[in-house]
């Protein structure tokens, strides 16, 4: 008999592939069958996971959001299916063969491969019917027959089943490869509110997060494809500032994100997919170092703000532009101060400790506060000092030609500019 292992056999009703991905967090040795059956070899990983109890406890957590119909724990993969006489069967190590031999003869056709061809299936059943007629009641009665007798009475199929029952044939477990995109669809035809939609999306998120955990990935982007009753379809994307595979976090973010959306016809279905992922690398945290924890908390806060307000946010990174509103961009997480925007490393290879290119214009005359949209104003009164002139290149889209001035009044100091058309704009405050 071949070496004994610990094998988990699982039969799943709705999303076996998703469950297979989620089970990658238990073991990398997974075999997947198109019939919705999985074989997991947990011999090598159960010590890491706290023994067989730990493995089964983790499986229970994963299985909460899938429809598992049958679970069998046994020593050999070829015995798992016949041993599954109940929805949940755990056979202690070393006792699988004894348990197998005690089963009725009708369980013999299930020995061996997970997928059996139609013809072979019929042949097996015919053989079992013959075994019953000749008085064999249990698998033990069949297994104790000598091979010569089996060959003479039951033929090659009998020899095959005899070898399976004694564990003399190895069932190879081909490596399961991840090919399926991370996507799932909710039938939303009965959904009448955002709360109901979130409730419907919750198990989907849990399943997707289990799959992410199995793949050792974090979600970076979520995409929702909506299909409406009037035939319209539209998509919305939620980009995460802090990649994660925590379903609770994603539910909260989706809740706030969905409440900002509107649609003008009843919803038919929503497809949730994760098109962009990042590797989940555990950080090395020191017991006394709170910096990484804080960065993580701030990332979560920014995720929430982005989902709730759809607001641009992040830390500023200076760019090579003299146009005030283009002289910086927002980034999260904060970029290395010695990094270079737009890949122009030869321009920005030297930066000071504040992250500014050393050869950039100083901009010391520019104000602390700049309006996002310059405000048109009448010709200013007060002391006017010329400041700077900017003009973009002819090939730039949206030509900008401005002459800036500092306008000082008794109350404040303003940064204004005039265009070639003679229109004044208030752009900043010192």
């Amino acid at each position: 008999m071949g070496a004994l292992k610990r094998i988990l056999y699982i039969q799943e009703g709705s999303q076996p592939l998703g469950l297979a991905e989620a089970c990658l967090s238990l073991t990398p040795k997974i075999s997947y069958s198109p019939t919705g059956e999985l074989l997991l070899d947990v011999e090598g990983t159960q010590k890491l996971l706290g023994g067989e109890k730990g493995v089964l406890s983790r499986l229970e957590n994963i299985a909460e959001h899938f429809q598992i119909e049958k679970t069998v724990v046994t020593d050999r993969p070829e015995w798992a299916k016949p041993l599954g006489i109940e929805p949940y069967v755990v056979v202690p190590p070393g006792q699988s063969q004894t348990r197998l031999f005690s089963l009725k003869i009708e369980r013999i056709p299930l020995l061996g491969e997970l997928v059996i061809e139609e013809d072979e299936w019929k042949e097996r059943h015919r053989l079992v019917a013959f075994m019953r007629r000749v008085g064999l009641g249990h698998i033990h009665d069949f297994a104790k027959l000598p091979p010569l007798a089996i060959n003479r009475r039951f033929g090659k199929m009998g020899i095959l089943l005899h070898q399976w029952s004694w564990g003399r044939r190895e069932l190879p477990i081909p490596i399961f490869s991840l090919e399926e995109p991370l996507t799932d669809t909710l039938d939303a035809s009965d959904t009448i509110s955002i709360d109901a939609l979130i409730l419907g999306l919750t198990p989907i998120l849990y399943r997707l997060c289990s799959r992410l955990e199995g793949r050792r990935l974090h979600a970076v982007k979520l995409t929702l494809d909506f299909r409406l009753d009037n035939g319209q379809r539209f998509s919305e994307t939620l980009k995460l500032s802090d990649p994660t595979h925590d379903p609770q976090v994603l539910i909260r973010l989706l809740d706030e994100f969905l409440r900002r959306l509107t649609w003008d016809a009843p919803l038919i279905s929503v497809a949730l997919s994760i098109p962009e992922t990042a590797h989940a690398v555990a950080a090395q945290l020191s017991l006394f170092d709170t910096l990484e924890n804080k960065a993580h908390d701030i990332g979560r806060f920014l995720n929430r703000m982005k989902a709730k307000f759809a607001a641009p946010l992040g830390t500023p990174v200076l760019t090579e532009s003299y146009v005030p509103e283009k002289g910086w961009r927002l980034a999260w997480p904060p970029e290395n101060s010695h990094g270079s925007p737009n890949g122009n490393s030869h321009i920005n290879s030297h930066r000071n400790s504040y992250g500014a290119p050393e050869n950039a214009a100083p901009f010391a005359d520019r104000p602390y506060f700049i309006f996002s949209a310059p405000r048109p104003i009448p010709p200013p009164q007060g002391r006017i000092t010329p400041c700077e002139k900017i003009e973009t290149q002819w090939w730039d889209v949206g030509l900008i030609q401005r002459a800036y001035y500092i306008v000082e009044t008794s109350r404040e100091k303003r940064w204004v500019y005039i265009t070639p058309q003679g229109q004044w704009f208030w752009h900043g405050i010192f």
Partner: protein
Amino acid sequence: MKTLKWSTQSDLCQSVLSKSGGLFHFQGEAIPFALSLVTTPQRGASPSPSSTSGGHFLWISDEGFLNPAALVARRVELPLSRLIIITPPNAKESWSCAIEAAQSGLFSYILFRPSQTCQGSTGRILQLASEKSATCVLILAPVVLPHWVLKASIEGA
């Protein structure tokens, strides 16, 4: 509520800011003064973003932004990696954002410039959130605020 002059009472302003959180209204255009207050390390105060303890600085405004180029050019003691900028689409959402930020307790200082004032209840919620989380919210906008929610109003000369 205290009323202070920022041009003549800078030490007093710093000591007021160093105490546990609250709302501080800077009358007039006092961004440089506010920046100097929050980037100066105070004994017993919340960690300044310029210190190595890793405190973060949050800017919220629906009508504009704190110019990073000016901060760098004028050598303000504030690494850009510790400054977070959020630009909500309107004044109402910027007040909501400020409340959420104060409630999170993640930021030592929040620089806040809304384009419009708020209802009394909103100001009160922000006041309570900032005091509970020991966050100093510096309101740098020429808006009228209910005085009972402010810890101090700091005016120019």
